[in-house]
């Protein structure tokens, strides 16, 4: 039993890990039960932004019925929700509020970026008021493409999320290692948000095609 006290920082190869798992069977079982519980009762936040919200609602209706997976309890307050479905275009005016709501949710919490707009800005990417993907500010667990995604796709993304939850273990779960993840809420400035992205969760890609900042603005 004491073998399970090994520090999680030590990098283990697979055989040792299986051996340890065999020894620490109780720990992994507790994980398993816990993951079963929180995977089976993912309560989403009633949080509709744009077009995708309608398909999110449709996924809770009679034909698709998200309640079969235990997720029909749409909580209106972030304090009681586990999952935030960012359903639709996040504008720059709305982005601080989205981050704030994410901050208000208790751990463990997950985010599904639903629809092209939430992932990258989608068709409205060129707009002066559109945030180019919510993953610039908050960590996204499942990306659900589509414009808008079908309700079946919402159910599938929930299933993916449940699979992801099943692979998490308490020792390495950010929810339990870091405390509540609270990110800086961006502020309005003259033309853009400040900061323009959250470096903890997103870095601008180093693309050779992108011109350096000075050259581009010259």
């Amino acid at each position: 039993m004491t073998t399970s006290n090994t520090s999680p920082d030590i990098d283990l190869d697979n055989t040792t890990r299986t051996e340890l798992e065999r020894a620490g069977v109780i720990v992994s079982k507790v994980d398993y039960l816990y993951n079963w519980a929180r995977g089976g009762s993912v309560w989403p936040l009633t949080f509709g932004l744009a077009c995708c919200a309608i398909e999110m609602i449709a996924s809770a209706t009679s034909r698709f019925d998200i309640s079969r997976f235990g997720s029909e309890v749409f909580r209106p307050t972030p304090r009681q929700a586990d999952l935030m479905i960012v359903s639709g275009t996040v504008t720059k005016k709305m982005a601080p509020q989205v981050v704030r709501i994410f901050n208000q949710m208790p751990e463990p919490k997950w985010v599904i970026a639903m629809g092209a707009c939430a992932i990258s800005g989608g068709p409205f990417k060129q707009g002066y008021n559109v945030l180019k993907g919510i993953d610039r500010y908050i960590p996204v667990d499942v990306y659900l493409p589509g414009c808008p995604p079908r309700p079946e796709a919402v159910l599938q993304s929930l299933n993916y999320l449940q699979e992801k939850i099943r692979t998490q273990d308490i020792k390495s779960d950010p929810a339990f290692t870091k405390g509540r993840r609270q990110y800086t809420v961006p502020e309005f400035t003259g033309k853009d948000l400040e900061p323009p992205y959250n470096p903890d969760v997103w870095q601008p890609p180093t693309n050779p095609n992108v011109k350096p900042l000075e050259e581009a603005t010259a």
Partner: protein
Amino acid sequence: MSLEPLTLTDILIATVPLMLIFATLFAFTTWLERKALARIQNRIGPNKVGIPCTRIGLFGLGQPAADGIKMIFKEDIVPRGADRLFHLLAPILALIPAMLVLCFLPLNFPWIKNIQGLVKPFMLDGAVIFFFAITGLNTLAVFMAGWASRNKYSLLGGIRAVAQMVSYEIPLVLSAVIVVMMVGSLNAAEIVKEQADEYWFILSPWGFTAFVIFFIAALAETNRSPFDLPEAESEIIAGYFTEYSGFKFALFFLGEYIAMFAISGLAVTLFLGGGDGPGVTMNPEDQGLATEAFPGLSAVWFLAKIFALIAVMIWLRGTLPRLRVDQLMGFAWKFMLPLSILNILVAGFAWHAEQLDNTIITVITWVISFAVLYGAASGLNQLNRGKVRPREYKYAE
């Protein structure tokens, strides 16, 4: 009848199984509610989360367990600036009164007979008064939660809750007064026994009126739809528990359902004959203990009646929209209160008429009291309804 002092063992025997049973029933009720609502709404409801660590669905019966485990491990957030002490106390206070009421219900579980001297530990003589005194505490808990959260929605919910629960307490008590008048005792066991001997009070006109008033007021007391204003989702987010997360929210949830059990148990005791039913005969000499076809039958009847009432509550929740706050208060003060006062008068006359022990007079009394109550109810309805009516519309070609 012996009145030996109870030992700790006796108290534990009487209470611990009760706590376990109702906690299990709570879990079952949440599942039942989700399934029943799904059925009303043409859905299937939870069916994937069954036995842990397997893929067996088992009609989604594992759902409450999953919810519970998740809630226990969920992070507990207290808002900055909130009153930490009262924020913590409120959910506990919401749970305790309901639990206490459950202990004093005349439920004849078989193990109670093993207790010393055959006296049920909590067979109070003033049980009815105790019930209402205790349930009044719930208002305090709700307001405490609303105030301590330091959230405007919570505060609104708390204020609404106080207004609503205090107002509906009056018709609730006044309709219970009928039963006390009829029986002449405040003892819950006596009330049940009286009903088993004579008739269930719901079957008489005044009893039925009182039951309806009681049930409506009970819906308001437990904040169930259509009186769920303190937690009105579409208006004030989640009302008084907007800022509660994790286990504290679970306690509120538990408290709400236990309060449903408690208030339904009261209704069953007062109007539906308690544990009376086929196969059960009440012994006049034992304090509320019955002779049953098999042990625990009367407890089964009691729980079945509770669940019948809870099913109605779920049904209403799936069907009706919510009232507005002024209509809610108007309904309590302008409709329920006059009717329940009139009902007391009617019941008083009826009781005197019944003392004459004449079948014809009894029948006439019943008919007259039915007519009076029906007329009063429809008259009050007309008076309060205002100009609200369906309208006709024009068409342009």
